């Protein structure tokens, strides 16, 4: 609710404001939705001036429609597909992580989600030479494991450079996460290139760790903050052409029901792609456990495809 004040737009003077307030018009919405002829008569203001102010306010506060053809052109040049570091996972995701979308990895504790995230960070930093922002809310990020992965793929100097391109921020509650994202947004909008080069991906491990404490109980504030986080992630992905990867826990309704993502119905609408990561005991060889990823939701592929993950 934006309150009208002098100088909000040219033509909105203090005297005009006084007259408008006297007839009960206080916010932008009040102004735009009132009948201007009526207001002109009641407040003895010029109809033309009011129409001009209305036009400027609408231009300032409403969203602009964009033509489909123009949007397609823009997307063709800005969308990129990022490799995840695991060729089988890439195949599952129809060649990789698409920018402009939120992808969710769900799985039980210990199923390998953090490993997949580290693999993604390493792969994007090394092969694409792009910067990575890793928000760690579980304390599961270990630089040594990341080093191990990089060392398996390349030699020393490149490994150092790759490590430098990965920025890790430790956040332990939702407010820290929101402020880290806000900081990212500020940096991207000012295009400050000094410490952060071209950023293409944000990995958040995990989102359920910061959101679960908010849910439950009868208050809806928790859900509102969760939806605000969701909105922030989607806006970042779309407006700055980033790929956003989040990890989530799983729950099930009863012991025989299929696994579903945690955080409830409202969150389930947020990611456009969802992958279930499980770790299964190979029956013929008890020593190894294999990791299996299955596609639970995708805008491009039929669901249900399963692949074996090869995480080094």
């Amino acid at each position, binding site marked *: *609710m*934006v309150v009208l004040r002098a100088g909000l737009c040219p033509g909105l003077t203090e005297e005009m404001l006084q007259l408008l307030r006297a007839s009960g018009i206080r916010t*932008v*919405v009040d102004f*735009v*939705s009132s009948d201007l002829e009526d207001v002109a008569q009641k407040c003895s203001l010029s109809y033309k001036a009011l129409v001009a102010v209305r036009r400027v*306010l*609408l*231009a300032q*506060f*409403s*969203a*602009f*429609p*964009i*033509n*489909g*053809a123009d*949007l*397609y052109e823009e*997307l063709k040049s800005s*969308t990129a597909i990022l490799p995840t570091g695991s060729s089988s996972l890439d195949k599952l995701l129809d060649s990789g992580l698409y920018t402009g*979308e939120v992808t969710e990895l769900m799985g039980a504790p210990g199923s390998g989600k953090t490993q997949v995230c580290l693999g993604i960070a390493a792969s994007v930093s090394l092969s694409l030479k792009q910067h990575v922002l890793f928000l760690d809310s579980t304390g599961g990020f270990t630089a040594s494991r990341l080093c191990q992965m990089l060392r398996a793929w390349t030699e020393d100097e490149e490994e150092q450079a790759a490590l430098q391109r990965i920025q890790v921020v430790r956040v332990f509650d939702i407010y820290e996460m929101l402020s880290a994202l806000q900081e990212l947004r500020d940096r991207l909008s000012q295009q400050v290139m000094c410490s952060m080069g071209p950023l293409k991906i944000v990995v958040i491990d995990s989102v359920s760790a910061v959101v679960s404490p908010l849910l439950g109980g009868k208050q*809806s*504030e928790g*859900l*509102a*903050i*969760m*939806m*605000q986080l*969701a*909105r922030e992630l*989607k*806006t970042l*992905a*779309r407006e700055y052409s980033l790929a956003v990867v989040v990890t989530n826990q799983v729950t099930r309704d009863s012991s025989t029901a*299929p696994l579903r993502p945690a955080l409830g*119905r*409202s969150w*389930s*609408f*947020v990611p*456009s792609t969802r992958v279930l990561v499980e770790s299964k005991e190979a029956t013929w060889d008890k020593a190894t456990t294999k990791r299996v990823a299955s596609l639970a*939701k995708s*805008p*491009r592929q*039929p*669901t*249900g495809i399963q692949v074996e993950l090869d995480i080094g």
Partner: protein
Amino acid sequence: KLLARLEGRSSLKDLEPYLFAEEGSPVHGHVIEFHGPEGTGKTEMLYHLVARCILPKSGGGLETEVMFIDTDYHFDMLRLVTILESRLVQRTEEMIKQCLGRLFLVNCNSSTQLLLTLYSLENMFCTHPSLCLLILDSISSFYWIDRSNGGESLNLQEMNLKKCANFLEKLVREHHLTLFATTQTLMQRSTNSAENPFPFKPQHETDIDYRPYLCKSWQQMVTHRIFFSKQCNSGSSTAFTVVSCHLKRNHVVKLSFSVAECGVQF
């Protein structure tokens, strides 16, 4: 302005005969709500309808314009282009661009911005007589944020949405539009039947997981409500079901569809 209205809008008849329980739907002035949990094909169905509208007559379309309001950054342009390419005989860039030129997209960040955007779009409807389909995906995305901002008063919580619904009704009526809006199943159906103000009991009631939670002004303006659900088969394909209800006349139709590379198939 007046002339544009008198000239009449292009007709949306036969837009998708499978979806509607009666002949000749949708007509202008209809408000159709798509309701269902996530992953049940609502957005796919919208792409199907958009494709039907923007494709040229030679490609099996209606050659009309569409205004798509996206409130949660859900719209996937690449997917729409894949669907268009699979339906066009000549898949040239020119043809795709021509089709896409008939589509207008807006992104809204809050219910206040949605309301203000609707006001500023009014002008577009006057200047584009072939713009007769308005899609809103989805009208329920601000539900929790509005509820939290409104504090204790239900009135304040619902106020923005109520104003949007009222203004949408005015737009639909004055400019002879058809409105499709999606709502998400955010809550479980209440087991207390007294609380459920559903006016009629369709035979498939046990399949429908519907609990109305949006404001009364919206619920009263909806003329058709279509419920989406999904059954997971043990095989590879997932079947989606649609139950289409015409609210005033108690007509119910149940159909299944599947989603392929080229879009929705009945």
